[in-house]
């Protein structure tokens, strides 16, 4: 008959074995492509395309746009490329690597992957009129183990939840890797690839196959209601006591610094673009200072924030708004970085 353990010995041995198993799950081998298939947003996907663009597409990337859905639906890579070509005669490849929802931690993950795979000459990071306190909830899906474990701890509300989720994520990925079965596809399929010039400024394809046109303008009262609701939500946020206010944006500041350091280590450039919301067209200097953004920001605010014909809702421009923003962005790109990409775009 097998030896019985004392209650304490049983509890300790079960605990130690549980922790060992969870530890083993964390270091289990897994397929990075499958990892980038694990993030979706309910009705849309983007992360898997980003990975495919970075790793399976031979086209280089000169300008990587990284931000939220505002960038995703507000800046058109093909439009910027065409405007840049018309102005300089040079060909650049612009990849819109933005992902819905806010959080600098995921911007860092995307910038790191882009730097590893394509080393874009210029990485442009989105700024808004407000900075989220919580980091991106998809970070735990996309980041590698090291980035999750070494994420900032102080003032990071996501740190411990993400850390707790890590063994489960790794176990799922290990199982997927073992069975050769990703969340969406087992291996890269060139026929299903959406191409290097993916552009969601004109229409948004949903997972059910329907396509939502962005050629529509929201009524003004709806835009005002959306803004009022955002203002109300912001007013409802508890103010951070002055003694610890410097910690409020500590985490995003650290991630922006890491992106800067990553680019510098690769001899590449980083710039910032401000994308407005409805009737919030002014660049928030205090916020950018707090985030440690000292360089001049590409400011796409101004009159567009007051033009109701350019908005899909209170925070996203429609297709006409995106055309205007893309054109202004391209003009500023030409002014600041006139020698990106290759010569003679007409020939290519």
């Amino acid at each position, binding site marked *: 008959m097998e030896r019985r353990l004392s209650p304490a010995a049983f509890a300790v041995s079960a605990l130690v074995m549980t922790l060992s198993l969870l530890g083993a799950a964390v270091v289990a081998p897994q397929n990075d492509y499958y990892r980038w298939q694990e993030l979706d947003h309910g009705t849309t996907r983007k992360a898997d395309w980003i990975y495919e663009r970075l790793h399976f597409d031979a086209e280089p990337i000169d300008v990587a746009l990284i931000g939220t859905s505002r960038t995703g639906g507000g800046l058109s890579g093909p439009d910027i490329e065409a405007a840049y070509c018309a102005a300089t005669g040079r060909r650049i490849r612009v990849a819109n690597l933005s992902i819905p929802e806010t959080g600098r931690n995921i911007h860092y993950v995307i910038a790191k992957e882009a730097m590893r795979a394509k080393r874009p000459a210029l990485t442009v990071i989105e700024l808004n009129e407000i900075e989220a306190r919580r980091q991106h909830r998809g970070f735990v*899906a996309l980041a590698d183990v090291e980035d999750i474990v070494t994420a900032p701890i102080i003032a990071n509300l996501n740190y411990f939840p993400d850390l*707790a989720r890590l063994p489960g994520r790794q176990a799922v990925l290990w199982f997927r890797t073992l069975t050769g079965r990703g969340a969406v596809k087992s291996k890269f399929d060139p026929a299903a690839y959406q191409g290097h010039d993916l552009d969601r400024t004109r229409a948004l394809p949903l997972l059910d196959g329907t396509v939502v046109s962005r050629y529509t303008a929201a009524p003004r009262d709806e835009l005002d209601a959306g803004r009022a609701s955002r203002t109300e939500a912001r007013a409802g946020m508890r103010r951070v006591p002055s003694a610890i206010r410097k910690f409020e944006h500590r985490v995003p500041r650290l991630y922006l610094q890491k992106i800067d350091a990553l680019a510098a280590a690769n001899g590449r450039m980083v710039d910032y673009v401000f994308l407005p919301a409805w009737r919030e067209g002014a660049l928030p200097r205090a916020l950018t200072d707090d985030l440690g953004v000292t360089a001049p920001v590409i400011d796409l605010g101004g009159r567009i924030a007051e033009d109701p014909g350019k908005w899909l809702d209170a925070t996203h421009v429609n297709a006409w708004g995106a055309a205007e923003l893309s054109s202004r962005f391209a003009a500023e790109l030409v002014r600041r970085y006139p020698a990106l990409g290759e010569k003679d775009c007409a020939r290519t």
Partner: protein
Amino acid sequence: MAPRRAPRGFFMGRSKREKQLNRKGNLHPDGLPRAGARGPARGDFMVFSAYPFLLVFLPLTLVGFYALRAAGRRRMSVNFLLAASFVFYGAWSLPHLALLIASILANYCCGRYVASSAPKERRRLAMLAGVVGNLGLVFWFKYLDFAGSNLAALAGADWTFRNIVLPLGISFFTFQQIAYLVDCYRTRDGERRFRDYALFVTFFPQLIAGPIVHHRYARPQFAALASERLNADWIPYGVMIFAMGLAKKTLIADPIARAIDPLWAAAATGDPLGAAAAWTAMVGYTLQIYFDFSGYCDMAIGLGLMVGVRLPVNFNSPYRAKSIIDFWRRWHMTLSAFLRDYVYIPLGGNKGGAFFRLRNIFLTMLIGGVWHGAAWTFVIWGAIHASLITLNHAGRLWLPELDRWRGPVADAVKRAALLGAVMIAWVYFRADGVSAAHAVLRGLIAPAAGYAPDPYVLALMAFGAALALFAPNSLEVAGYVEAPERPIPHECAHGARMLRPTPMAAAATAILLAAGLAVAWRPAVFIYFNF
């Protein structure tokens, strides 16, 4: 339309509310809910299978409790359990915690009077006032919207009822207190120590979804906890049973729920389902609710054992029942006992002949159905079970040869018929409305085109069905019996097959805990938390 199978990713945790928002066209340009859409309710992190409970609340509570016990502060350790239970409930909602405390105070005072030496008539009046007060509370929070909106529809009036947020566990803690008041009146014996009464109501392993505990069962245990040594031999069994419950919830119930929720959502929007989708939805839910509730009950019992308290058995392999009467002796057993003692018997019970007995059985089961929720789907579900159980009793009275029909064939036929009826009733229980239930039921006999269930989900469902139908349940495996004076494992139950706290059992427990923890990053609320 056969529902489209969206690729299921790692981060699919979108709430039902969010899905509804999207279906109504209130769509964010990136497929996200618009600003202002509410996320999961505050406090959902206190679900037994969620990380904040598993990795923060539970370890801190156990460490604090054991430290006080080790220091010889037994009374303090009971106070600590009470405080932890308040924290547990307060994490869900502070206003509802205030309501819970008010309810405890009122019932405690009422109970003291009912159990006092006051004249019988006055005690009776006090008891009735307490019962009515408790029922009124449940009615206000749970049934006012439903009753009011139906009355308004009948009257053709345009009354609006504000959406009242249902306090978690209100049906459980008020019914437990109703039983207490009635018992006080019958026995003239109430709880004197407020602390013990409050702990009897709020004890966190059973506060939200039961089991419904009788005061006479809990009282000596809490008294002993404050004065006697903890029976440490129970702790390994608590950990093992808890691990089995966690695995049932996170490894079986939740993955099945994620696979079938889109089918139920499609039915709710009026999309017709094909046969494959409808059968997957119905069978899937039959298994989901089984492993969800049985997992919860195991976890509650396991948690109780970890702090030296036995809880009543609430779940005993109900899908192995051979009749609907047997089913209700195995499913939510403490609710069945409550309904018998405090509804069926006050209605008259067996008195007055066969007709009145059957009427009382029907009414009791119907009330049991409505207890689960304020919606016509629950009324229909209750009516189906009430009809079946009444027929079963009538059959025993007037067709005894049917009851005497035994043997393997008879068992198979009876179990198949019972499972079929239970599954059809679950359709009403789960559906978001009667029309959605009918969409699923129509789908059962529709062509099977368009939907192909995920083979992994099918395999999981087959495994779950095998466990539910043929395997001994976790309490049988652990040799658990609810009587606190009996040892665990209780030898007379299953002999050598029972678990012992051996190194092998510790390893198996660790595997279940690790697997349960690994997939607990997307916890779902237990179904019975809604009642």
